[in-house]
């Protein structure tokens, strides 16, 4: 039996039951559409996060005080790690030639007050360099001035500005953070969340001042910008060497690159996408049961036809294939429908939330089609075998249903 004959015969049989055919196609369609939509969302989340990281620059080295990795035996004499200081940062810039810029950062939270308004803010102690390293843009005024690490000036995040100075120009005004007074010299352009820190919710002050405000001697971290991404490996070693020398021979910092953070996020979100696909696959399985049910009904309804086919010389195998193909057509048609539905609703989402990249991964599209076809074959096996095994004499004797 040629494939064309098979497809023609099966399609003819399916056309005979339009409603039933339509419903089982719809069932598979919904399953496939949900696989595609959910993986699109997962993939979108992954792209969104990695995209955010990319805006931070891929040639950043993040230096964190303290060693998080434990290796070998614990030291006999355990000493607290040395503080990571502004002097360390300056030494790195001076002694590691590939480092273009360094940005020492201190972080704390405090209440910020302007007149009668007050709110909790994240205070970032920073230097002028952070402006370029983190690609910040000014909405008004200017950023923290270079070479004035102890000035009492501040730059406001967009939302902090809105809430402390609604409908007013904050430039030149004073705010209070803890016991300290700061003159507002600039406002950062709204930008929204960027990896764990809502930049609209922060107040940036000079790093030296921040250390005094929070009464700390050590930095939160140091960002080092390297000339090119390919230098990161060598720079890492140099940084460790320089800091070990400065910290009495102890290696007490952790180095992170965007790559390693990105890799972690990528992995987490990849797992998330797979989990979503798994959930959606359940609906595909349910659709498969639907197909099995419909095919079982078909086989018992068409007993006489099956008996006839055998009397006309159809082999066991041919009868099996006829019904398998019928199931496969059902599920593959459902797969195509679901593909269109899934991609279509992805488009709609994209339209509604332009910032969020909804895109079905290619593997999901290919997999949806392959899986939907195999769902038909898999769930069609039982009914098709039942058809092929029918005793032709008994099948022919059946009264018409």
């Amino acid at each position, binding site marked *: 039996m040629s494939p*064309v004959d098979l497809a023609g015969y099966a399609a*003819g049989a399916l056309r005979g039951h339009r409603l039933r055919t339509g419903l089982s196609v719809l069932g598979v369609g919904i399953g496939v559409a949900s696989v595609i939509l959910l993986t699109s969302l997962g993939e979108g989340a992954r792209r969104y996060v990695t995209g955010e990281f990319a805006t931070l620059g891929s040639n950043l080295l993040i230096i964190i005080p303290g060693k998080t990795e434990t290796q070998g035996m614990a030291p006999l004499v355990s000493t607290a790690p040395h503080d990571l200081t502004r002097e360390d940062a300056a030494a790195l810039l001076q002694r590691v030639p590939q480092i273009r810029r360094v940005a020492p950062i201190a972080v704390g939270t405090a209440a910020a007050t302007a007149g009668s308004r007050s709110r909790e803010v994240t205070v970032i102690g920073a230097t002028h360099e952070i402006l370029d390293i983190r690609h910040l843009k000014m909405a008004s005024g200017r950023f923290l001035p270079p070479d004035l690490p102890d000035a009492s000036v501040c730059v406001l995040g967009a939302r902090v500005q809105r809430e402390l100075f609604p409908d007013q120009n904050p430039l030149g005004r004073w705010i209070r953070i803890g016991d300290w007074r700061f003159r507002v010299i600039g406002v950062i352009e709204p930008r929204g969340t960027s990896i764990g820190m809502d930049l609209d919710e922060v107040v940036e002050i000079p790093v030296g001042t921040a250390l005094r405000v929070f009464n700390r001697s050590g930095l939160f971290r140091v960002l080092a910008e390297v000339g090119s991404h390919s230098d990161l490996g060598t720079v890492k070693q140099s940084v460790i060497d320089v800091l070990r020398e400065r910290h009495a021979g102890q290696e007490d910092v952790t180095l992170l690159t965007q790559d390693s953070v990105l890799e972690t996020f990528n992995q987490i979100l990849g797992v998330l996408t797979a989990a979503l696909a798994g959930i959606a696959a359940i609906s595909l399985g349910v659709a498969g049961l639907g197909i099995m049910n419909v095919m079982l009904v078909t086989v018992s309804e068409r007993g006489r036809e099956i008996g006839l*086919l055998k*009397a*006309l*010389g159809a*082999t066991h195998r041919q009868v099996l294939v006829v019904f398998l193909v019928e199931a496969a057509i059902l599920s593959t048609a459902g797969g195509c429908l679901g593909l269109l539905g899934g991609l279509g609703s992805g488009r709609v989402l994209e339209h509604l939330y332009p910032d969020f990249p909804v895109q079905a991964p290619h593997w999901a599209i290919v997999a949806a089609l392959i899986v939907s076809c195999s769902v038909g074959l898999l769930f069609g096996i039982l009914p098709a075998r039942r058809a092929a095994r029918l005793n032709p004499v008994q099948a*022919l004797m059946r009264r018409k249903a």
Partner: protein
Amino acid sequence: MIELSGIERIYEVGASPVRALKGVNLTIHRGDYVSIMGPSGSGKSTLLHILGCLDRPTAGSYRLDGRETADLPEVELSRVRGHQIGFVFQFFHLVPRLTASRNIELPMVFAGVPVDERRERAGRALEVVGLTARADHRPDQLSGGEQQRVAIARAIVMDPSVLLADEPTGNLDSRSGGEIVQLIEGMNARGLTLIVVTHDPVIGGRARRWVRLADGNVVEDKVPDESPARPVGPLKAS
């Protein structure tokens, strides 16, 4: 040539098995015209199904053209059904969604005959049964007699050597029944072995050899002396 010896068919139904055939011996030569008659439940259909390789005997030997069918694998039996045997049933058994011509093509589809040849042979078969004009009609657009003629066209389109008919006129009025009988007798005249199961003594009486079954046994097997009452022209209603 068909040789049956000691054919038994026992249906296992619950505790008491039903012995539908109790040792049938029968030899039918190529080109023969045999009628099988007998009371209801005597095993006529069971015998016909065994002859058509749709069913296997519980015991005994069935040799078809010298080959012992009991030894043939299932696939080979399918081939025999497709190529050597044509069936005509009481209830026509056309596939309702297919046109007359597509119904006739079915056996050729399973035998792997290419499309063009299929179309052509189906057309010729329709011509033989005089239904060329109805090629594209579906069964529900045809009368009973026409449906049975399509079924006959389908049965002969693979050019089998044996035509098995189980009450081919059982569902037809006597006039179209007569037409059907004449049609298949014409094919027998061209060499096709014809075996007809019937309740109708007039139709059964037209055969060259009468086999009578009762309770699973052949109780009569005779070739009537007189040349069979075979009036040329339409049959009279019985």
